[in-house]
């Protein structure tokens, strides 16, 4: 831990001392989530979504393992086994709907978490690796979600697998053999379903492993905060437990309420009706649409409609992968020393344009291919690339940032004078800031 005032673990119970002397597991847990992790005291609610992402990963793993006890990964039996889970297995409908909507909510909280990082500059030194490990988690999530969507073997599962694996055939020379190798055949079939199930079961545990690295790397410099100013001394922080566990706890309950409303009252709202039709390789659906969380990238893929040196399809695939990979370079694309968007007036505007731009891309990705929507998608995709590769580097060069507070608690001290309430009587671990 980087902060000298982080209180080391002191076992209270003799049993724990005995264990800690031999295997410092309690120390590890304490250091990771307990009082041993000092957190800036000024975090706002956008900082709650990392914990929520961890919560949804757990929900997905638990419900997923349960579903796997009833699911058959066979082309003839997959669809019916999912229906069997929904109709005949006790509580099966609940587990299945939680897993199905849990994927969407996992992405929702992850997107909020990513955009929070973008706004407050959480990708900048010294947190570059935290950011990059987060992107690795995000890529693994996309792969896992895609393979999970194939498992019910409905129409959209089958044709989604067909479209996504087709990307690989755009690669020159090795493309087609690579596609056949990935699928284990010329089209999605039993071999593909079996391996997707195998990988869909494996990858969440890989994600959990990278999550541990993500948090480990975070705990070296500690959390960023809304001012983006570094923590200077103990007055700037509070121990994670109990302060942030309490804040995360009530917010998680509130967010799960929102999740429950969708699961119980609109469980198929985010899904595609076509996936309740069993897969049929002779009947292509009118529109092949991925799940909502992949739509912005689908829109980028489909925006490349003209050949230029390379075929349009290859451009689309390159651009789609680049649109995510370029985020790995973000710490070096945005060189402004100021982290928080609150103190960067020009950056702030472009940030909100980017948010709208990504929403527009998502909308376009879900629409049927029509000249107008394709044109809107092309403009939005152009902005996406210009934002990260041209606008951000230039803004960070020419922008005059607003003056930063000298420290987190300085921005706090001026506020204290306005507050007539007396300072508290001094809870252990809370430093009362006297004016």
């Amino acid at each position, binding site marked *: 831990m980087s902060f000298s005032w982080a209180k080391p673990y002191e076992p209270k119970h003799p049993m724990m001392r005995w264990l800690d002397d031999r295997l410092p597991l309690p120390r590890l847990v304490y250091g990771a989530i307990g009082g041993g992790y000092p957190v800036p005291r000024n975090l706002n609610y956008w900082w709650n979504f990392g914990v929520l992402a961890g919560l949804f990963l757990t929900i997905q793993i638990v419900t997923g393992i349960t579903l796997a006890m009833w699911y058959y990964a066979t082309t003839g039996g997959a669809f019916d086994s999912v229906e069997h889970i929904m109709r005949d297995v006790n509580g099966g409908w609940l587990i299945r709907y939680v897993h199905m909507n849990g994927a969407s909510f996992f992405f929702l909280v992850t997107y909020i978490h990513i955009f929070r990082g973008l706004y407050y500059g959480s990708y900048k030194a010294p947190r570059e690796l935290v950011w990059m490990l987060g992107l690795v988690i995000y890529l693994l999530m996309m792969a896992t979600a895609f393979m999970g969507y194939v498992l019910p073997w409905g129409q959209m599962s089958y044709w989604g697998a067909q479209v996504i694996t087709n990307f690989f055939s755009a690669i020159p020379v090795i493309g087609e053999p690579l596609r056949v190798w990935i699928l284990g055949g010329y089209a999605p079939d039993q071999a593909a379903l079996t391996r997707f199930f195998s990988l869909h079961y494996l990858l969440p545990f890989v994600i959990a492993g990278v999550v541990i690295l993500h948090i480990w790397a975070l705990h070296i410099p500690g959390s960023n905060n809304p001012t983006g100013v570094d923590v200077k001394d103990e007055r700037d922080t509070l121990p994670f437990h109990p302060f942030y566990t309490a804040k995360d706890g*009530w917010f998680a309950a509130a967010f799960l309420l929102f999740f429950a409303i969708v699961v119980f009252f609109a469980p198929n709202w985010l899904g595609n009706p076509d996936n309740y039709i069993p897969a049929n390789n002779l009947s292509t659906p009118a529109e092949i649409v991925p799940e909502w969380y992949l739509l912005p990238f689908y829109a980028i893929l489909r925006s490349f409609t003209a050949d230029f040196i390379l075929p349009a399809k290859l451009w689309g695939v390159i651009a789609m992968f680049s649109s995510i990979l370029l985020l790995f370079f973000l710490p070096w694309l945005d060189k402004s020393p100021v982290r928080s968007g609150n103190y960067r007036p020009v950056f702030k505007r472009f940030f909100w344009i980017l948010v709208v731009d990504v929403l527009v891309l998502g909308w376009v990705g879900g629409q049927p291919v029509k000249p107008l929507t394709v044109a809107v998608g092309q403009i939005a995709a152009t902005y996406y690339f210009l934002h990260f590769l041209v606008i951000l580097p230039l803004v960070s060069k020419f922008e005059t940032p607003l*003056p930063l507070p000298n420290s987190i608690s300085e921005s706090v001290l001026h506020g*204290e004078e306005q507050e007539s309430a007396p300072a508290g009587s001094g809870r252990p671990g809370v430093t009362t800031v006297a004016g």
Partner: protein
Amino acid sequence: MFVRGLKYLIGLGFAFVLLLALFTGIAGYVKNPPVPLPQDEFHKDPKPLHLASDGPFGKFDNRQVQRGLQVYSEVCKACHSLKLVAFYDLKQIGYDDAEVKAFASQWQVPDINPDTGEASTRKGLPSDHFPSPFANDVAARAANNNALPPDLSDIVKAREGGAAYVYSILTGYQNQPTALLQKFPTAKTPPNLHYNPYFASLNIAMPQMLHGGEVTYADGTPNTADQEAKDVAAFLVWTSQPDLNRRHAAGIAVAVFLAFAAILGFLAYHQLWDEAKRSVRLAGPLDPENQAKRTRATRKAGVKG
């Protein structure tokens, strides 16, 4: 220097290819404007349908669902299977064991003759699923002008618009509008197909099955086409989501529990943070001194807002 410039090069490169695609698209659009299709203009969204199962407090109206079962059993089952539903499931819509047994025994289900090993049929048992009207898809197509009547078990979940879509299709048959034929003279509904503006391609293979009077309801409900369509739509909501009653009831309980947990958690959080907050003005940017500094700097930087 080259590496530094690389980002601009890549960014502008993507932008160039995209704008090229945009202009190619616009040029193509101007040169060959897309041909309008009849369905762009004449396709209709489903008519509104209100069922007892709607909304978070919705529950099946068992009498209506039972009437829908009667419509399915006397009309739809001639062509449409209901593979995912078992006879014993009917206990969920208000039948008792004896009624389910009697109902199942009215159906012939495929079996193997235990003496000869040849394919045969026997009376249905409560544990059987609804038998399909055709032996396989090829037989189904052969009997229906090469159209395949879809299985109805999941139909409400498998169609955009759900129950309202089913109801609209069943009651939406009409003559092809003359305005359509004037505008698209080649779009006349082909023989063996039937004009229905609620169907995606406007021409559906299924003929109009409900004209009113197909079934006689034991409870005296008028057997108009509209009523029959509503009842069978309600029945198909149940076949698609037999969990709906339990789901809604559990949902209310879970929502109340989580709301309670969130409120308690919020109060605990407030009590805990009260002291820490008193010594901390959380929002640095809201601090008047910082605000004044920012206003000055903003003016200096020449940025509005």
